[in-house]
């Protein structure tokens, strides 16, 4: 087991290196010169030269990369050109906000998607199955921004039930923090719930027709036990892997959702950084996101093995 985790961690290293090269070169390929942006209207050649020296922009690109990577490994992701704050500090401020949004969205997605998927599979080809599928399809096709705006209009403006914005940190004011996050989390979790429902349904359908489910029924188990224990415990395996992939989708969706609900999270950080050509921040955010994604997949892989005795045996 530990050797398996160690193996997966080792595999993550080259993946991260490739990502770091990609992240680094991406910003080199972007149009626009940050130095010109900082130098202001006068564009004094001396100032420009000073800035180039300061940020090592005169070094050959591979050396710039090596230097950047070396610092990054020590936790130094550089200084934000715009705010003059260390990138790590910025990331540290915004990350908990997005993590809270992600966790709440996932809870929504699981709470809606999985029971609906199980029900649709058990009641295959009945009205209930069709309704679940239509709901899922709408969840997938309605764009986040539209749903977000409509919710704000209905729930905040007309009904006044929930605030439309005004994020409060969770550890300072948990109740209001959750209140402000409810709508964004629903908007973000909604599409994931649809994907989860479809996959749960198909995983359950294939398990329900398995020989061992017939065995479970033949020994006289109740239908509830057959579905929830014997079937679902097997169907959950592909869903674990899927959830890790959905996490990536969640981060992409967070960018837009945080804009709509003006949540000061990761998504807003990256959008602001891109518009102001704040390269160090872009690099830092993309790198952190990639690490998060790899970590989620690692957890999914380990969980898959923990839940699957056959895999455990092969370790």
């Amino acid at each position: 087991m530990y050797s398996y985790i160690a193996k997966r961690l080792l595999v993550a290293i080259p993946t991260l290196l490739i990502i770091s090269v990609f992240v680094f070169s991406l910003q080199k390929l972007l149009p626009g010169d940050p130095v010109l942006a900082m130098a202001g209207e006068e564009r004094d050649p001396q100032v420009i030269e000073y800035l180039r020296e300061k940020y090592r922009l005169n070094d050959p690109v591979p050396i710039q990369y090596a230097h950047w990577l070396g610092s990054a490994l020590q936790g130094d992701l550089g200084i934000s050109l715009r705010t003059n704050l260390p990138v790590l500090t910025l990331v540290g401020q915004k990350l908990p906000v997005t993590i809270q949004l992600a966790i709440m969205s996932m809870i929504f997605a699981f709470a809606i998607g999985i029971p609906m998927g199980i029900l649709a599979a058990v009641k295959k080809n009945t009205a209930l199955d069709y309704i679940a599928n239509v709901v899922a399809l709408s969840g997938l096709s309605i764009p986040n921004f539209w749903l977000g705006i409509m919710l704000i209009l209905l729930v905040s403006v007309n009904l006044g039930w929930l605030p439309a914005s005004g994020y409060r940190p969770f550890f300072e004011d948990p109740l209001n923090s959750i209140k402000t996050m409810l709508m964004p989390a629903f908007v973000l979790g909604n599409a994931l719930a649809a994907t989860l429902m479809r996959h749960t349904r198909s995983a359950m359908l294939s398990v329900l027709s398995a020989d061992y489910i017939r065995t479970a029924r033949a020994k006289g188990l109740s239908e509830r036990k057959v579905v929830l224990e014997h079937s679902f415990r097997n169907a959950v395996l592909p869903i674990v892997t899927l959830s890790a992939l959905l996490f990536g989708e969640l981060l992409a969706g967070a960018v837009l959702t945080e804009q709509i609900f003006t949540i000061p999270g990761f998504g807003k950080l990256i959008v602001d950084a891109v518009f102001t050509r704040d390269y160090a921040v872009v690099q830092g955010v993309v790198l952190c996101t990639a690490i998060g994604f790899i970590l989620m997949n690692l957890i999914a892989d380990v969980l898959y093995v923990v839940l699957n005795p056959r895999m455990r045996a092969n370790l």
Partner: protein
Amino acid sequence: MKNPIDPLLSKPASAASAPVLSVSDLTTSFLIDGIWKPVVRNVSFEVAPGETVAIVGESGSGKSVTSLSIMRLLAKRSSRIEGCVMLNGRDVLSLPEKEMQQVRGNDAAMIFQEPMTSLNPIFTIGRQISEALTCHGDISKIEARAETIRLLEKVRIPNAASRFEDYPHQFSGGMRQRVMIAMALASKPKLLIADEPTTALDVTIQGQILDLIKLLQEEEAMSVLFITHDMGVVAEIADRTIVMFKGEAIETGTTEDIFHKGKHPYTRALLSAVPRLGSMTGHKWPLRFPTVDAATGARIEPIEVADTVDRRTQPILKVENLTTRFDIRDGLFSRKIGAVHAVESVSFELFQGETLALVGESGCGKSTTGRSITRLVEPNAGKVDLDGRNVLSLGTSELREMRRGIQMIFQDPFASLNPRMTIGATIAEPIVEHGIGKPTQARQKAADLLERVGLNADMMTRYPHEFSGGQRQRICIARALALDPKVIVADESVSALDVSIKAQVCNLLMDLQQSLQLAFLFISHDMAVVERVSHRVAVMYLGEIVEIGPRESVFGNPQHSYTRKLMAAVPVPDPARRGIKRNLKADELKSPVRPVGYVPPTPNYRNVGSGHIVRIEA
């Protein structure tokens, strides 16, 4: 097998005791495209206490549907069960679902064909067996555990207590079927329904499981409803037999009567198609199966064919010291920790017009041998000479060229045809691909080949799903013939087919051999079929050939202990042998997994005469 002390068992079919199961006018229909289509029609029979009744029939005969109808295990929305099923005096079909759950596992329990897939892979076997106890009775967890271990001991699983926490994948197929039986016995059912319980097992394991069922039936005084397609198994186990054909029970009687005085033409056709071990004594060459018209009962006896083997020339295929191993890797850096010695120093010759059978049980290396020769897997060492060419040293383009001379037919006719290609295109493809003919010529040849394998040329435009299993295997044979090969490797090619279809396809292969002088490497686990079709036989065990020689000599005078064990395990379709127990030990098939650096001992052989060679046992 009858227990003289128990009065119920001494008179199994006595009318004095009420039947455990009484089925009358059972009709089961499936909803297919909006129409209720009956798949079982007006089936009636009884099972007395302690009696074993077999339902025998081929695929599609409705035998499994009958058993699932009794247990009401068919999907509710797409099936309809009519008639009356009395189990222990209760009308099963009128019970509400909640009460039916108490009947299942309690009054009647069931075991299934596929032990590999019939157990839930993520729960321990201990949990799965004790569940059968706890869901029916008021029993504590600790009691259930103790009872489960007792059940595991009862089905003769070695070290039962230590295996409680094991998962299904840690058991072999035969052991899993024992676990299934333990689960079925949990609530001491009056009736055990066994749906093809030994079909997926190796023949020596099948013998063990049949013994176990007989033994437990005595100990527990249960009735058994045994569903099978295998007449040999029927003869060994059943007091009475019901023959099913196209959804109807066409003949019912004592097993002796069915075998010796079967009236229905289909019964006779079925019995004549059954390969019987020992039926070839006195015949020198392979012999076609007799054919019986299932409608009229007219029987056509096979005519002896002349010798097709041309031994004067060089062998068409010569294999020397072929060795194929698969590495087993593990750990952080995937170090090699051992190897499966799948094929170990195998040598044989195959002549034009000859059938050499490779016979053995799962994991003996027979299929890997076939694949190594065609280089579908890369052998580690050895020499394969096909028609004067050294196969193992060929480059990519020469390999393609070589494969024209050697073609394969696989086991599963459903999986080995591309569902999106018409069968005409499937057969013509290799001709065009190898640049032998233009598309029009290829189509002409495909049409000829279809006729040759007993199908019609106008079927060319149809897709595989429009054909039955037997027809599909004929299509696979036509495809293999498309390149005019000299050698055909038939890997379990008739194993998945029904008895009567099996006989027909074997007959076809023998006819083709006669007309085209084909050489067959016939890979099979079925001793009775092998005896019928082959000129020479090689018995494989743990990757090695332990005995090879002319079929008459190997079957008539088996020398190696494994050959004898294999032959003794084959069920013989003769009801006079009913009740015999083989007293096979509950051992498992050995595996050819060896540690790194293992050097196999040099085998020594002795010559029994006329090319019959046996490995000397240590």
